[in-house]
């Protein structure tokens, strides 16, 4: 079946088998291997991407279901060699150990911050409930998300890139 999907700002048209999962389309067909697969049961969240501005587990969606939609992966966040503020906050707060869960954690954190620009710890923990860290580094992940909130206020999500520029300007002006 022929699909056209926008991924990280570029439109792709491909013939795919209906059974192809979105995550395999991204990795195997488009080479977007930043999005990873961690489980068979839709539990781990490592494969989280945004579809039309909302987080989804890309292992739990068919590529054909993404036809006509806009997908953002972890590879679409950095701009001109500069990390997205959530990526930078994960780096600065040592919010990764092996790093396998990190792409999904960051994508979910951006979604969470779009709905809750200034989350308390409990809001972060429940908002990141669908993402498991096998290294169990949750303390620093929570810290990084709250730190990112501070860097990105006001708002995030679909606005993230513009906010990223704004925060760059702000820190440049300090």
């Amino acid at each position: 079946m022929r699909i056209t999907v926008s991924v990280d700002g570029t439109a792709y048209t491909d013939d795919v088998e209906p059974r192809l999962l979105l995550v395999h389309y991204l990795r195997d067909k488009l080479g977007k291997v930043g999005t990873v697969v961690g489980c068979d049961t839709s539990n781990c969240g490592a494969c989280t991407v945004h579809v039309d501005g909302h987080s989804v587990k890309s292992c739990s969606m068919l590529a054909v279901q993404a036809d006509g939609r806009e997908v953002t992966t972890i590879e679409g966040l950095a701009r001109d060699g500069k990390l997205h503020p959530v990526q930078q906050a994960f780096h600065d707060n040592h919010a990764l150990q092996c790093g396998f869960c990190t792409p999904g954690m960051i994508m979910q954190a951006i979604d969470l911050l779009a709905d809750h620009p200034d989350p308390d710890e409990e809001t972060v923990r429940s908002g990141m409930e669908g993402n498991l860290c096998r290294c169990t580094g949750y303390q620093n992940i929570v810290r990084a998300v709250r730190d990112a909130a501070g860097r990105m206020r006001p708002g995030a999500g679909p606005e993230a890139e513009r906010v990223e520029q704004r925060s760059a300007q702000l820190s440049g002006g300090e």
Partner: protein
Amino acid sequence: MIPAPFDYVAPTTVDDAVRALADAGEDAKVIAGGQSLLPVLRMRLAAPTKLIDLGRVAELRGIREEGGHVVIGAMTTHYEIQRDPVVDTHLRLLRLATDTVADPQVRHRGTLGGALAHADPAGDLAAPVLAMDAEFVLCGMDGRRTVPAAEFFVDYFTTALRPDEIVVEVRLPKLTGWHAHYEKFNRVAQAWSIVGVAACLRVDGGVIAEARVGLTNMGSVPLRATEVEAALVGHPATAATVRAAAAHAAEGTSPAADGNADREYRQHLARVLTDRALTAAAGV
């Protein structure tokens, strides 16, 4: 793992979806949010030959008021329900239960119709819609029919849906001003209910005028705790009333035993969680 091969169609109307389902025969399945179905296909626990995707049927999506009812399209997502002001005002219990389902990613894709049609006894939305006296509008080749929630759930993972039928919408009577709470017991993040209790009450002048209590995972289908309801109505909304009523919560139930809980423990949980749910709902 990856699913076994299947054909795929994405109709845009209910009529086309039903026709596709009827034409494809027994081995076809509809896919809604895919949050229960795709894990099953990935693990090859099922291998339908054809998937009929309801994701592009606009008429299945959305929330509207119709007099004394709120009507929710089957393809309305959990996330949309969580954020809808009409639901929050008139169907607070559904909103509270939906808040406990899975995790944000799953709630962005998963749908009310899919969760109910899946009919997992541990699913968190069946007991609330049963307690709210919902009706299901189903559509097949012979047209539409309306089935009360009490008749929709038939057995483990089994509903009144005929092979050529889909859930079109769920009609829920408005429970405006009722007090509600959904008390879910599980052990780890994003887990299903070991037991859950859905409670809503209408309190008039300090007296419980109406009471509805639904139980999750206390049998093969969601149950109404009718003895609890009877023990509440007509009594003052106090902690003593709640405690006495909650003691009846497990009466007539025969829940399954599994790795999470044996039968007696589930019955114990039903009583404790009913007490908590009613206490929170009544604010006593």
